[in-house]
């Protein structure tokens, strides 16, 4: 199966975007080779601004550029973009409702060897809580590319979460990516797997194996965490009566939290949240860490089995 890291797809999409629209300006904080904004920098040096290792000023400058009419894409690692510069994102970008698109790479534990200090496990939760903020977590290279264009068209601030490792391509060019609209990749009546980011591919794999056992699982790519596709969640809750959420993020406040908020108020059914259990990450190979923190296909299977046992 063909693989591509979402950050690689982001870098390439930015160049395409820059060719199409000359109001695109890209900022980075000395990580352009890792976040892949270096492709844009090479192509459009006059529209690329390196802030140096100064994420707070990067976000502040992004606000000023956006206030002067630019569509700004600002990148760093998720832990710095959403963490170090949190209050700049809140007050300068979101409060002022500006066209700043914070595209943060190296999110989650699949950062790998760099360890816990560099593995954002709470960024979705933090960004989701900020008014005016849209939060997007694409699952593969194709959807990342489509998301970049959708995010450009979207009026207002966006936080887009990207990953370091290469992940299998799920979509082809026919994908119709709409912010706020989840994608039902597979329909089954027994259980619904709602995933974002790199967990979407794993959910599909698990659904395939479950089918062999006679368990029919629905799989949803919930690429937009905010605004959340409540209609789809409620429909799937009614249809299947059991939901498993999957994210490479803390189980507190992320996709799982968001789904629970909707389900508990509007259509109470059993929900199990798969994710990182209120822990920091650590050094290791990405696959080893996914195993250690319980985010493999095998873990999905176990969780579905447990869920179906207690499902009324």
């Amino acid at each position, binding site marked *: 199966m063909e693989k591509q890291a979402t950050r690689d797809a982001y870098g390439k999409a930015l160049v395409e975007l820059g060719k199409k629209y000359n109001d695109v*300006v890209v900022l980075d904080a000395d990580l352009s080779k890792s976040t892949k904004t270096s492709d844009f920098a090479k192509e459009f040096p*006059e*529209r690329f*601004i390196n*802030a*140096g290792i*100064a994420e*707070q*000023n990067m*976000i*502040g*400058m*992004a*606000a*000023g*550029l*956006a*206030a*002067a*009419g*630019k569509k700004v894409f600002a990148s760093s690692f998720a832990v710095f973009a959403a963490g170090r510069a949190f*209050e*700049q994102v809140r*007050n*300068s970008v979101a*409060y*002022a*409702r500006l066209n700043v698109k914070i595209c943060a790479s190296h999110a989650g534990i699949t950062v790998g060897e760099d360890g816990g200090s560099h593995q954002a496990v709470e960024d979705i939760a933090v960004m989701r809580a900020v008014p005016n903020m849209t939060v997007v977590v694409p699952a593969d290279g194709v959807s990342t590319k489509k998301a970049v264009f959708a995010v450009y068209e979207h009026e207002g601030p966006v936080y887009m979460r990207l990953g370091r490792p290469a992940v299998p391509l799920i979509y082809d060019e026919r994908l119709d990516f709409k912010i706020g609209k989840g994608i039902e990749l597979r329909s089954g009546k027994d259980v619904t797997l709602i995933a974002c980011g790199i967990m979407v591919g794993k959910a599909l794999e698990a659904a395939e194996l479950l089918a062999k056992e006679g368990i029919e699982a629905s799989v949803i790519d919930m690429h937009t965490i905010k605004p959340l596709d409540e209609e789809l969640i409620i429909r799937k809750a009614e249809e299947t009566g059991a939901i498993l959420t999957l994210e490479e993020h803390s189980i507190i406040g992320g996709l799982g939290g968001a789904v629970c908020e909707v389900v508990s108020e509007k259509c109470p059914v059993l929900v199990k949240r798969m994710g990182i259990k209120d822990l920091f990450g650590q050094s290791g190979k990405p696959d080893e860490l996914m195993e250690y923190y319980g985010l493999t296909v095998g873990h999905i299977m176990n969780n579905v089995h447990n869920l179906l046992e207690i499902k009324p």
Partner: protein
Amino acid sequence: MREINLETVRIVEGKAKVLREDILKMLAEAGSGHTGGSLSSADIVACLYFWEMSIDPNNPHDENRDRFVLSKGHAAPVLYAALAEKGFFPREKLKTLRRLGSPLQGHPDMRKLPGVEASTGSLGQGISWAVGMALAGKIDKKDYRVYSLLGDGELQEGMVWEAFMAAAHYKLDNLTAFVDHNRLQIDGKITEVMSPEPVADKFRAFGWEVIIIDGHNVEEIMRALNKAREIKGRPTVIIAETVKGKGVSFMENRAEWHGTAPKKDDLEKALAELL
């Protein structure tokens, strides 16, 4: 280059007086807000809005307009007074400062009030906006100029030094920053709370052109602004030596007037002093 003569100086001095009156009246009406730092920067803001900047209240989003970012956003009253006097909105609105539903928020909100260029108030962030706007001007090859006003206490925020570094690195000669050097912050003297001194030396070391002036002398402010227009290849900072609470004897140089609004009696006494 703008013309400096007796007439232009007299006009701006008159405007500064109007701003001070409006600041005191709106704060007294609101019952809370930042008096000291609004009064200390009134002469600078009057120079910018009534002499220096190309702005048109009838076309507040003109792409070629000059831009002012009030990085010390708590001095919102001085900005609101200038915008009202310039004609961006009716003066009556000044009375709604800090009220529910008012476009005159406690700290400036660009989405609520025309003429406000940046939503500021969280100290240290406005100067980064100004750097971003100046960068946009360079990218678009436009000749608008960007101005920002910082407090001297605000220099304690680490991110301002990131912004100063970036402004010099990108040779932003279309950017002029003012430091309202009134030497007081909420908890007392800046040198006792956390000294940012020597301010001028720090800016020079960061690659800025430094001009030091009396921030209450309109002619000196004008000369500094004209000089800043001539500096090429680097940003300029005008360090304005000011008095917190300037214009009202019982408010001058008193840290307790940082975040206190005048009561009715105070207002009458204060306004009488301004006349």
